[in-house]
C-alpha cells in the first residue's frame, strides 16, 4: 500500500472512529496505522460530528434526582488532580440548540413518577453488591489471593453475574494508592471470548479503607469468566497490561 493509500485508509478509519462505527478488526487496524505510520491524530471529525449533533439537539432538563446525585459526588471529585492545558487551536462553534425534544419526551414518558425518583436514595457499591447477591443468588463468587509476598495481607472476593453483566470486588487490606502515580486495574479472563483479558475498570483505594467494595466496569461483555486479575498500572490504566505488577488473582 502506498503512502497515499495508507493515509486514505487511516482517514476512513478515523472518520469511523468519530462516528463510533469501527469494527473489532478496524480498531486494531486504526491502532496499527497510528503506531506504524505515526499518523497524526486529529480531532477534526470529532468537532464536526459534535457540531452537527449539538446544533440539532434540543436540550432536556436533567432529572432532579440525578442533579442531586451528581452534586453530592462533588466532594469526592476534589481528590482528582486537574492537569494543565496547552493551547493549540481555535474553534468557533455556536451554542447548542435544536430539536431532539421528541426523543427526550419519549424517554420521559417511560419514566416513573418524579416524586419517586427524587426520593429514591442512591445505593452505595456495598449495598448494590448485597442487592445483587439477594436478587441473583446464583451469582459467581471467587476468593482473591495475593499474587506476591508484597501483597500477602490481601484478601476478599469477586462477585460476578453474567446475566446482569454486573459485578463487584470486596477487597480487604489492598494498599492505599496515590492516583497521580498509579491506579489499580481489574482484568477479566473470558476464554469464551478472547485470549486477551477484558478491562474491568480502573480503581483506587482511598485513605481509611480497610475493606473496599469496588464495582466492576467491564468495557466488553463477558461470559463465564475464569480468572480475575488486579494489576497496578499507570494513572488512568492501560489498554493492554504488561502485568509488571500483579496484585491479586481470583480463579474459578
Amino acid at each position, binding site marked *: 500500500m502506498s503512502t497515499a493509500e495508507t493515509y486514505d485508509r487511516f*482517514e476512513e478509519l478515523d*472518520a469511523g*472512529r*468519530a*462516528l*463510533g*462505527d*469501527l469494527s*473489532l478488526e478496524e*480498531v486494531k487496524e*486504526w*491502532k496499527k496505522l497510528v503506531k506504524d505510520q505515526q499518523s*497524526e*491524530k*486529529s*480531532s*477534526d*471529525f*470529532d*468537532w*464536526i*460530528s*459534535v*457540531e*452537527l449533533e*449539538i*446544533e*440539532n*439537539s*434540543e*436540550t432536556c*432538563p436533567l*432529572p432532579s434526582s*440525578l442533579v442531586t*446525585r*451528581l*452534586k453530592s*459526588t*462533588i466532594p469526592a*471529585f*476534589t481528590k482528582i488532580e*486537574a492537569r494543565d*492545558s*496547552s*493551547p*493549540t*487551536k*481555535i*474553534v*468557533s*462553534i*455556536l*451554542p*447548542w*440548540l435544536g430539536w*431532539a425534544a421528541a*426523543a*427526550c419526551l419519549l*424517554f420521559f414518558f417511560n419514566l416513573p413518577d418524579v416524586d419517586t425518583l427524587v426520593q429514591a436514595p442512591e445505593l452505595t457499591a456495598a449495598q448494590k453488591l448485597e442487592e445483587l447477591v439477594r436478587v441473583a443468588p446464583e451469582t459467581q463468587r471467587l476468593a482473591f489471593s495475593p499474587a506476591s509476598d508484597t501483597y500477602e495481607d490481601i484478601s476478599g472476593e469477586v462477585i460476578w453475574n453474567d446475566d446482569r453483566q454486573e459485578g463487584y470486588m470486596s477487597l480487604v487490606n489492598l494498599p492505599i494508592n496515590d492516583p497521580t502515580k498509579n491506579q489499580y486495574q481489574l482484568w477479566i479472563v473470558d476464554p469464551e471470548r478472547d485470549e486477551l483479558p477484558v478491562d474491568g475498570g480502573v480503581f483506587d483505594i482511598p485513605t481509611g479503607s480497610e475493606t473496599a467494595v469496588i464495582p466492576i466496569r467491564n*468495557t466488553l461483555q463477558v461470559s463465564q469468566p475464569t480468572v480475575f486479575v488486579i494489576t497496578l498500572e499507570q494513572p488512568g490504566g492501560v489498554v493492554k497490561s504488561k502485568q509488571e505488577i500483579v496484585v491479586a488473582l481470583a480463579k474459578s
Partner: protein
Amino acid sequence: MHLRNFILFSNIDSFHFALGIVASEGSQSNADESLLPLVAKGDGQAMKRCINVYGPLVWSIVCRRINERNDAEETCQEIFTEVWQKAGTYNPEVARESTFIGMIARRRSIDWQRKQSRLPMLTDLESAPEASSAIPIAGTGLDRELLWKALEQLPEKTRELFSLHFVKGMTHEEIVKETGLALGTVKTRLRRGLIDARKLLKDFTQQKNPKL
C-alpha cells in the same frame, strides 16, 4: 416538514425560523461561561454550576442513545466525572465549553452503545478533547459558518444520511431499515461524508484566510 430536511436548507437560521425555534438570549448566555478553568482549580461551586448549565446538553446527548434509565444516569455521572478530570486540559482558545463537554458526552454515549454490541470501546483511542493532540482544521479551527457552507456542497444522499444519524440519532442499523440501503453503503457514505466535509471546510477556510 420532516426533521431530516434541516440540512438541505441553505441557511440553518432560516430553518430554525421556519420551525419557530429561535435561540434565546438566555440559552446563549448560560452556555460557555468559562466555568471549566474554575472547575480545574477544584472549585466545587463552579462544578455545580457546570452541572446546571451543561446538564441539559449532556442529558439530551445521552438520551438519544441510551434508553435505559439507570444506564443513562450512570453514563451522565461518568461524563461529569470526566469533565472534572479533564477540565484542566480545556482551552477556551480551542473550543467552547459546550463543545468540549458535548464531545465527552457523545463519546461516552457511543461507548455505551458499543458495549451493548460487544464491540471494543473507543474512548481509549481518542485524543480529543485534550487540545495537545488536536490538529486544527487549516490551522485555525472550525468556523461554523464555513462548516454549514461545506455541508451544503455534499451530495444530497449524504446529507440525508447525516440528518438521520446526527439529527435523529439513528444507528447505522436503524438507517438501513429506514432507507433500505446496505449497511456497508451507510457506513461508507457517512465516513466519506465526514472526510469530504473536512476537505471542503479546509478549502473554504483557506479561501477565506489565504495567509494561513
